[in-house]
C-alpha cells in the first residue's frame, strides 16, 4: 500500500506544486449503523421471482401479471438489471445438490460510500439520511459517469428515450420506507425467509448469528460487510461467493483515491494559486531579462 500511497502523492505533488494535501474522502452519513439494510440469505431463495414482480409494480416499471414471472426460461443466461427493472434473480449451479440450484437476487448494493454519488457532478445521485442511494432525474445531465464509476455495474440507462432519459437503479424504496414507514416492496412480497429488512447493525448481527448457529450451512462470510467500504445489501451463501457471480472487491471505498487526489490538488485553491503566482513571477523575470538585452 505504501507504494500506491507514494504514487498518489507524487501525482498530487507534481500537478499541484507542493501541497501534497491529505483531505479525507467525503463523510459517510452519521447514521451508518442505523441506516437501512437488507440481508439476502441465498440458501433460502427458491427463485420464484415474486420480488421482481413486486418491484416492477411498486416502481411502475412493468405491468406484467404475476404469472409472467413463473417463466424460468430467463434463467438460461446470467442477467444484469436492464433500464426497465431494478432487480433480477439469477440461477447458479449448486455443487452440493444439483437438483436444488442457488438463486441470487441482484439490485443496487447501496454502498456506504457510493462511487456513483462521488462521481455525479450535479448531485443527481445522493445518499439519503437513511442511507439509501437515491436519484433525482431533474438534476441529471445524462453524462453516465455514475455508470463508469459503479464497481458493481448497477446503473442502467434509458438509451432509447430521446428527450427525458433517466439513470435507472434500485432506490431502496425510499418513499415507502421514509414516508410510509413500510418495508421495501421486494422484502414484503418474499414468501420465504430470504430477505430480512432492518438497521444495518442489526442485519449484520443477524447474519453472523446465522453463520454461528449453522456453520455447515453457510460460508463464514457476509458479502457486503466490508466490500468497497461496506454496502447496505448483505448476502449469505452456502458456496464461495466467487462461484455465484459476486465480484472480488477490496475493502477500500471507491471514492477514497479520486477524492484525495482531487482535494489534494485543489485544497482551498492554494496549489492553483501558487502555480498562478509562479507563472506570474516567471513572466516578469523573463520580461526583465529581455529588456536588458
Amino acid at each position, binding site marked *: 500500500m505504501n507504494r500506491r500511497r507514494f504514487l498518489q502523492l507524487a501525482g498530487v505533488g507534481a*500537478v499541484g506544486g507542493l501541497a501534497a494535501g491529505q483531505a479525507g474522502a467525503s463523510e459517510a452519513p452519521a447514521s451508518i449503523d442505523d441506516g437501512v439494510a437488507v440481508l439476502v440469505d441465498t440458501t433460502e431463495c427458491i427463485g420464484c421471482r415474486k420480488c421482481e414482480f413486486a418491484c416492477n409494480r411498486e416502481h411502475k416499471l412493468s405491468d406484467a401479471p404475476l404469472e409472467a414471472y413463473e417463466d424460468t426460461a430467463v434463467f438460461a443466461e446470467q442477467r*444484469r438489471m436492464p433500464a426497465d427493472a431494478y432487480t433480477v434473480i439469477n440461477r447458479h449451479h449448486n455443487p452440493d445438490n444439483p437438483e436444488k440450484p442457488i438463486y441470487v437476487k441482484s439490485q443496487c448494493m447501496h454502498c456506504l460510500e457510493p462511487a456513483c454519488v462521488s462521481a455525479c457532478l450535479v448531485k443527481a445521485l445522493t445518499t439519503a439520511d437513511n442511507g439509501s442511494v437515491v436519484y433525482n432525474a431533474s438534476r441529471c445531465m445524462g453524462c453516465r459517469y455514475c455508470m463508469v464509476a459503479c464497481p458493481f455495474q448497477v446503473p442502467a440507462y434509458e438509451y432509447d428515450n430521446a428527450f427525458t432519459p433517466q439513470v435507472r437503479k434500485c432506490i431502496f424504496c425510499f418513499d415507502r420506507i421514509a414516508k410510509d414507514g413500510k418495508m421495501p416492496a421486494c422484502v414484503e412480497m418474499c414468501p420465504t425467509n430470504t430477505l430480512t429488512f432492518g438497521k444495518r447493525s442489526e442485519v449484520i448481527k443477524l447474519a453472523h448469528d446465522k453463520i454461528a448457529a449453522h456453520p455447515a450451512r453457510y460460508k463464514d462470510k457476509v458479502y457486503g460487510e466490508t466490500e468497497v467500504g461496506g454496502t447496505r445489501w448483505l448476502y449469505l451463501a452456502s458456496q464461495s461467493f466467487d462461484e455465484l457471480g459476486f465480484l472480488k472487491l477490496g475493502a477500500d471505498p471507491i471514492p477514497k483515491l479520486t477524492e484525495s487526489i482531487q482535494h489534494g490538488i485543489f485544497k482551498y485553491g492554494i496549489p492553483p494559486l501558487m502555480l498562478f503566482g509562479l507563472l506570474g513571477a516567471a513572466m516578469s523575470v523573463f520580461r526583465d*531579462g529581455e529588456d536588458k538585452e
Partner: protein
Amino acid sequence: MSAHAVRYAPAGKRFLTPGVVVLVGLMGIAAAISLWRFIFGLSSVTNLNDQYPWGIWIGIDVASGVALAAGGFTTAALAHIFHRKHYEAILRPALLTAMLGYTFVGLALMVDLGRYYNIWHPAWPTMWQGNSVLFEVGMCVMAYLTVLYLEFLPIVCERFIGRVNLPGPLAGLNAPADRLLRFADKTVGKIMFLLVIAGVVLSCMHQSSLGTLMVIAPYKVHALWYTPIMPLLFLLSAISVGYPMVVVESMLASRSYGRKPEMEILTPLSRFVVFFLGIYIVAKITDLLVRGAQPLLLEGSFESNMFLVEMGLGALLPLGMLLTERVRRSPGLLFTACGLVVLGVIINRVNVFVVAYNPPYSTGRYVPSIYEILVTVGMIAALAFVYRVAVTIFPVLPAEESATSHGAR
C-alpha cells in the same frame, strides 16, 4: 512589446476549394445523424449500452479534443510567459485551434449527453458537487473556454476597429459598435497577462483532472493503464502533444494556402517536443515498472497490443525520429514525426476511456457504430471548416510577405 514583431493578415486565397466541399459534405452527414439522435435517442445511432456507457464520442471528441487543444496553452506559455518572441508567429493559429477545439468539445458533449439541455447545471451553485472529478473538469473547461474567447477578442478588434460597416439599416450602429470594440480592446489588453496565466493554470488543472476521471474505476480499467498517477500522465502527454499539434496544423495550413512551411520556427520548436515527450515516456515506463505491470505487455490481448501500438508507434518512434537533426529540418519527416505524436495521444485517450474499460459483467466488447464514427469525422471536418472561415476573416495567419510565399512546393 509595443508593435507586433509578426504581422498577421486574413488569408486571401479563394475560399471554396474541393477540400472545403468534402468538409461540408462530411458535416452534413454528421448533422443529419445528430438530428436523428435528438429525435430517436442515443440507442438509435450508437452502440452504447449499460455495460459500456462511454464510447468514441467521449474517447475521441471530448478526451482527445481537449488534449489536442493543448497547443493553445503551451505556446502561450512559451511566447507570453517565457518571452520567446521567436515563436510569436504560431501564437494566433494555436489560440484559434484551442478555442475551436474546446468549442467542439462542448458540441460533442451536447450530442452525447442524455439530457443535453441540462449541460449548464454544473455552473449553478446549488448543483455543485465538489467531490466529483467531472465537476472540476467541467468548471475548468467552461472557465478556460471563456478565457480563450477573451484572448481572441483583440484579434477581432484588430480586424474591425475603424472598419465597422454594418449592412443597410444597421449602419447607424457603426459608431457605437466601433466604440464598443475599442473599449473591449483596451480592457482586455490591460488584463491580457492575467488571462494568459489563468489559461495556463486552468489547462494544467483540467488536463490532469481528465486523467483522474477513470481512477474511480479501479476494477474496470485494465492494469496497463490504471494507475493513481493517471492525472500526471495526462498532463505530461497533453504538454507533449501541444507543439506537435501546432507543427501539424501549421504545415497543413501552409500547404493549403500554397506557402512554404515555417521551418525556421517549427524546427527549433520540435526540440522542446523531444524534451517533453522524453519526460512523458520515462514517467510512463517508470509507472509500469513500479507497479510491476510490465508482464502484462506481452499478454497478447487486444488491450496489450493497443498499449504497444500507443507507446511504440505514438511515442517511442517519434521520439527516436525527433532526436535526429535531419528529421527536425526536413518538412516531410518532421510532419510525420509530429503526426505520430498526435496519433499516439489520440490512441492513448481512446485506450484509457474505451479499450481499457472492462466492465465485470461484460457480454461483448463495445465497437463504435458507423454512425458514431461519422459524427466524430463530421465534428473534425466542421472544426477544420470553421478554422478556414476564421483565418479568412480574421488576421490569424502571418501576413503573406513575412511568410515569404513562393507558391506550393
